């Protein structure tokens, strides 16, 4: 009940935290699926091709983009975190947080642009 108040007043560092967690969760949920598809190369190359062709479809493409985005967000979020924890600390971490997210977004978008 009281949690709501805190989150509704979320500040940049908390947003960075929740983004990192959700992206990590998303990745962890996606990964088994990703592995399973790749393993099709062993058992059923035709179906793998089927899936890969699938990626040309808009919705799937968006999902793929989402995954890369997750990976980028999570990775830069993670690197941000480790910088925060281990490098002599600068007070401008909010900027750092924002910067990292922006950078990851940039890369993801780049990816998308390349892909189309």
């Amino acid at each position, binding site marked *: *009940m*009281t*949690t*709501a*108040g*805190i989150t*509704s*007043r979320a*500040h940049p*560092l*908390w947003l*960075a*935290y*929740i983004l*990192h*967690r959700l992206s990590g969760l998303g990745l962890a949920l996606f990964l088994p699926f990703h592995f399973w598809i790749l393993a099709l190369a062993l058992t059923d190359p035709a179906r793998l091709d089927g899936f890969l062709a699938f990626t040309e479809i808009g919705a799937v493409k968006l999902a793929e983009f989402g995954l890369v985005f997750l990976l980028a967000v999570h990775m830069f979020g993670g690197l941000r*975190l480790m910088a*925060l*924890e*281990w490098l002599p*600390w600068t007070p401008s*971490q909010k900027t750092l947080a924002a910067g990292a997210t922006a950078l990851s977004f940039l890369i993801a978008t780049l990816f998308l642009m390349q892909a189309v």
Partner: protein
Amino acid sequence: MTSQTLSVTIDRGAHGRDVFDVPAYESQTVLDVVSWVQQNADPTLSYRFACRVGMCGSCAMMVNGVPRWTCRTHVSKVVQDGAVQIGPLRNLPVVKDLVVDMDPFFDKWVGAEGVHHGALTRDDPIAAVDETSPARVEANAGIECINCSVCYAACDTVAGNPDYLGPAALQRAWTLLNDAKDEGRLAILDAVSGSGGCHNCHSMGSCTTYCPNELDPMSAIAGLKRETAKSFFRRGR
């Protein structure tokens, strides 16, 4: 001013919520509002305070869902459309109404070795301390903590992880680690490396954001992570 009133909702745990109309004044803190209710409207309302000037850290509550020291929170800062909602501090067991049991907070304070480990005695002279030395500056940064538990209430890691020592206790440990007079280095590093230690912190920074004294437990905890990581490579634990 007295013609105006505030609509004050107070969370009373199992008894639900009560709404009171409280006269508004120019100089009025959230603690004053709560006191007015107890002194004039509902004599059974329970809350805790002592110093009334932000020194004792016993009056913290959730105000509109945010942890705050109530004696130093002017109503005008929190009032929204003439209304305020007040509840007991988060992450601690409620004794009654707005009173929480702070023992877990202090047990963890002690559990983080948050106590001076000295080798000198009263028979020794007072050691010279260079206040500008980096270690002292670092130690000094967290010294004004009033153990109000606001950071502890703000932290979602505490909410999800009952073992987590929490920001204030870990900040105290960091202060001691940097205190040249303290001899408890290994004990502290062990205490903050255990299952409830600093490594549980996700640097979500709510502690630093809400600390009423503008302290920065998040950075203190980062300091602990650094030192424990170093000692991990050196000592292998």
